[in-house]
């Protein structure tokens, strides 16, 4: 586009904006006629369209005179085009606010950050700075643009309203009152807005619930692993009690576990072990990734269960005082496991704290 056509189009755009009140058909006719006039006047003046436009009446003045002749604007009393009813303007504002909230909440949803058990302060500060900057920028843009004549918003469209300029003043009128303006069906737009709001609300509502469910699944899984840790230790003692040889117990265990089992077996063989009782079982921790924080998005790599066992030695007469052993059972999920949180359980290490009265 050349500089001359830019100037012409700018003038005609302003004129068009001022003529919204007479409707699109008549407005287009006026624009075409003024374009023809200016083009011809510029040709007579040696092609200088900018100078021609300078000498032409301002678009606001020309538009005001046309509106006066059409009876839409009165020189003394202003516009005769009725302003839209107050309830309609209020409803349009409510819809616009709702759409703005939908936009902000959608962005918050996709930027959702779960901070876990030990929140990272730096991440929180950066995240909230971005969120508040985004909210401030969107409020500024929304309030700046909303009052411009000709600017359409979802709320205005739904309520069948239009913000137009008449004689330099801006007012909101019903589209039905603008001659020749097409009445746009708002049903589809209204349904679309309502569905968007409902969808977002359901997302936002389900988000913490999904997290809670995920955490609940993890806790349940941890409880299962605790009991499985108990079963591992219990079956170990049972096997030892019935006389299974050490070599048969150590197939899937680490060297630390093997030495603990050998120690247990020797106590059994030496006759010192009369009976046993599984005591406290405690889920030590989930270890996820490199740190110990619980994250709902990460699968635990290991789970540690402490199982306490009280061994009752054989004693001659009197009450026997148990010895306490604590086994640290570490469970690790295997890739073939088809259940979430499932483990192939094995004693990877054993810590023994022993208090005996020998």
């Amino acid at each position, binding site marked *: 586009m050349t500089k001359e056509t830019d100037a012409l189009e700018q003038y005609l755009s302003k004129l068009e904006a001022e003529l919204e009140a007479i409707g699109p058909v008549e407005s287009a*006719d*006026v624009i*075409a*006629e*003024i*374009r*023809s*006039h200016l*083009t*011809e*006047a510029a040709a007579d003046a040696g092609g200088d369209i900018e100078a021609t436009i300078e000498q*032409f*009446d301002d678009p606001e*003045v*020309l538009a005001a*005179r*046309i509106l*006066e*002749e*059409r009876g839409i604007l009165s020189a003394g009393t202003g516009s005769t085009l009725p302003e839209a009813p107050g309830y309609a303007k209020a409803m349009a504002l409510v819809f616009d606010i709702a759409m703005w909230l939908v936009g902000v909440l959608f962005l918050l949803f996709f930027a959702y950050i779960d901070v876990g058990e030990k929140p990272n302060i730096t991440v929180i500060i950066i995240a909230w700075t971005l969120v508040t900057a985004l909210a401030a920028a969107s409020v500024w843009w929304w309030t700046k643009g909303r009052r411009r004549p000709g600017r359409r918003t979802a709320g205005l469209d739904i309520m069948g309203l239009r913000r137009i300029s008449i004689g330099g003043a801006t007012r909101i009128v019903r589209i039905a009152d603008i001659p020749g303006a097409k009445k746009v069906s708002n049903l589809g737009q209204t349904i679309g807005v309502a569905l968007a709001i409902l969808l977002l609300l359901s997302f936002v509502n389900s988000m913490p619930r999904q997290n809670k469910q995920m955490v609940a699944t993890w806790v349940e899984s941890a409880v299962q692993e605790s009991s499985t840790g108990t079963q591992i230790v219990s079956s170990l003692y049972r096997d030892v009690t019935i006389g299974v040889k050490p070599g048969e117990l150590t197939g899937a265990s680490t060297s630390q576990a093997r030495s603990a089992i050998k120690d247990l077996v020797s106590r059994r063989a030496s006759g010192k072990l009369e009976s046993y009782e599984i005591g406290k079982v405690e889920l030590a921790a989930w270890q996820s990734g490199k740190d110990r924080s619980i994250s709902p998005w990460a699968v635990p790599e290991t789970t540690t269960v402490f199982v306490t066992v009280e061994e009752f030695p054989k004693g001659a007469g009197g009450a026997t005082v148990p010895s306490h052993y604590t086994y640290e059972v570490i469970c690790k999920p295997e890739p073939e496991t088809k259940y979430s949180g499932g483990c192939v359980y094995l004693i990877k290490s054993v810590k023994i704290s022993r208090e005996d009265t020998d």
Partner: protein
Amino acid sequence: MEDLSQWLVQLRKGVVELLVLRLLALKGELHGYAIVKELNSIGRLVAGESTVYPVLKRLASDGLVTSRWVEGGAVEGGSGVEAGAGPPRKYYRISDLGSAFLTDATAEWDALVDSLNTLKGEGND
């Protein structure tokens, strides 16, 4: 001077209609730019675009003139204005209703001028 200029504005508003109809009655068919040029060449009664175009709109809506678009500019042909090269133009022509109105309005105008002249003559006496 301010009162005089205001009065002239009001006068032009009333007179421009008559002038436009008279012009069209004399010239046959004219487009907007030509009408503005002709009116401005007449004399002291300057009529700008902001006066002429709104008046043309009203005359058209009242049925006193008819209009048509001639695409691609226009040239004077044997049967009047025909399409040529250049920007499209909107041509106006006085209607039968407009001619009748012009006749009546001119008679009223002449009567008004006679009255004014009569008063002027008496004043000079």
